[in-house]
């Protein structure tokens, strides 16, 4: 008779214990990874390939998204401002939103899918096929070999990709303003410079460094936790994208509240 009370309580209890367990395991991974930094002979040779895979290979999709974001921002700004505010504010709006929000966050969310899922699936497959165990038996620290180079690559390359995306987004907004909105370059640049603060760029860099650490760290965490074959690999990849995206949005709000 008390089933309808006990069952949800039990379910909530299990959920809480599971969440606390995940936090504990994430902390252990973080501490272990920090300790594994002492073994540059293991992670050093892996760093350049990871910089290429995580950063360079992500540039095309990041730029594709930035290009269309710039176009849409420009058109929507013009639609919103026409008749109320001078049109050169289109430049201000495109520049400010690309730097403060859309450049870092859209790129971060995109890379949560591309990079996070990729890392999770790769490490998950290595886990279920015992390749991670094999690394250990060959006297390699898996955290030093697998996790450290990926997180460093994320921290280094995300800001670079984001800065490129911001630049391309602003240029595409500018191009759209010239071609479709009957604006001149001096007008657009006037708007762009109107609200520009050098701090905006640093703000984007700080955000993207944190996004890089989160996407790669979450990918490694769920990848190394993978169990039960192909289904487990798929589940880990999904969890990585969902959790990393949620943390990116939370961090976005956190940085806005603390740094602006």
């Amino acid at each position: 008779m008390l089933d309808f009370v006990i069952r949800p309580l039990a379910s909530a209890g299990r959920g809480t214990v599971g969440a606390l367990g995940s936090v504990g395991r994430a902390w252990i991974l973080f501490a272990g990874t920090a300790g594994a930094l002492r073994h540059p002979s293991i992670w050093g040779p892996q760093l350049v390939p990871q910089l290429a895979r995580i950063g360079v290979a992500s540039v095309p999709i990041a730029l594709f998204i930035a290009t269309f974001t710039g176009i849409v921002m420009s058109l929507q700004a013009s639609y919103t401002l026409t008749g109320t505010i001078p049109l050169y504010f289109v430049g201000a709006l495109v520049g400010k939103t690309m730097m403060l929000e859309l450049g870092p966050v859209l790129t971060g969310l995109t890379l949560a899918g591309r990079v996070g899922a990729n890392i999770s699936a790769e490490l998950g497959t290595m886990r279920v096929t015992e390749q991670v165990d094999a690394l250990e038996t060959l006297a390699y620290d898996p955290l030093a070999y697998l996790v450290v180079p990926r997180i460093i690559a994320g921290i280094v390359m995300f800001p670079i990709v984001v800065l490129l995306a911001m630049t391309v987004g602003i240029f595409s907004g500018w191009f759209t303003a010239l071609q479709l909105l009957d604006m001149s370059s001096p007008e657009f640049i006037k708007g762009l410079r109107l609200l520009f603060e050098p701090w905006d760029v640093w703000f984007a860099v700080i955000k993207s460094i944190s996004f890089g650490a989160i996407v790669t760290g979450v990918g490694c965490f769920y990848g190394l936790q993978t169990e039960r074959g192909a289904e487990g690999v798929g589940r880990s990849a999904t969890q990585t994208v969902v959790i990393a995206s949620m943390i990116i949005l939370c961090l976005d709000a956190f940085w806005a509240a603390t740094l602006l």
Partner: protein
Amino acid sequence: MSIQIAGLHKAFGPKEVLRGFSLEVRVGATAAIVGPSGSGKSLLLKHLVGLMQPDTGSVLVDGESVPDLGRRDLARLRRRIGYVFQFAALFDSMTIAENVGMGLKRVPGWSAGRIRGRVDECLGLVDLGGMGERYPSQLSGGQKKRAGLARAIAASPKYLLYDEPTTGLDPVTTSVIDQLILRMRDELGVTGLVVTHDMTSAFRVADRITLLHEGKARFTGTPAEVRAARDDVLRGFVEGDPGLYYGPHRGGDHGP
């Protein structure tokens, strides 16, 4: 004694897999642990290289307690142990030569040239000479197992642990792998521990055979003693008779 396991217990939640398992392996011998799938054989091997921590009991290799070793000492111990995984566990993004040389990169003082030479030597030992540039996906099941063996012996280990080395192989390839295991013992003087459910293979390669049953060592003896044993459970496993192995009153609860 080179490997000593005593009173080993390991449980996952309510499921007790190992319930006081004990075993001793002499230097230079090859021991086999046999038992059905899921009986905890692979789990046992993982305790010997510190991939698993026992709940209770002791695991000694060369007198060192494996669960108590620190990270550095564990790495040192692992260099003395080669591990042949059930499905080879080759790094699929690397060539076979890179796989075999992987452990050697962690050995201080080994130059790239010396590693290359040793890799070629190991591939030759397992009859995979000339296949170093292939990727694991380009090898057959038997070739993958041999590549896994080459990787395990590359650092000249004192011990070799074989996890189901013949599972999924045809009888001829099984025989080839068994010959390799014997060659490792006779030519390299390696102490071997094989876990398998393949009795033909166990009889061929082992000096002593232990039946792992319900988490404990049910019977240990030479192949001749195993063949002559009257223990119903052992006979049931050796002869593949579920009635004898599980007992008539429990036959219906088990089986594939």
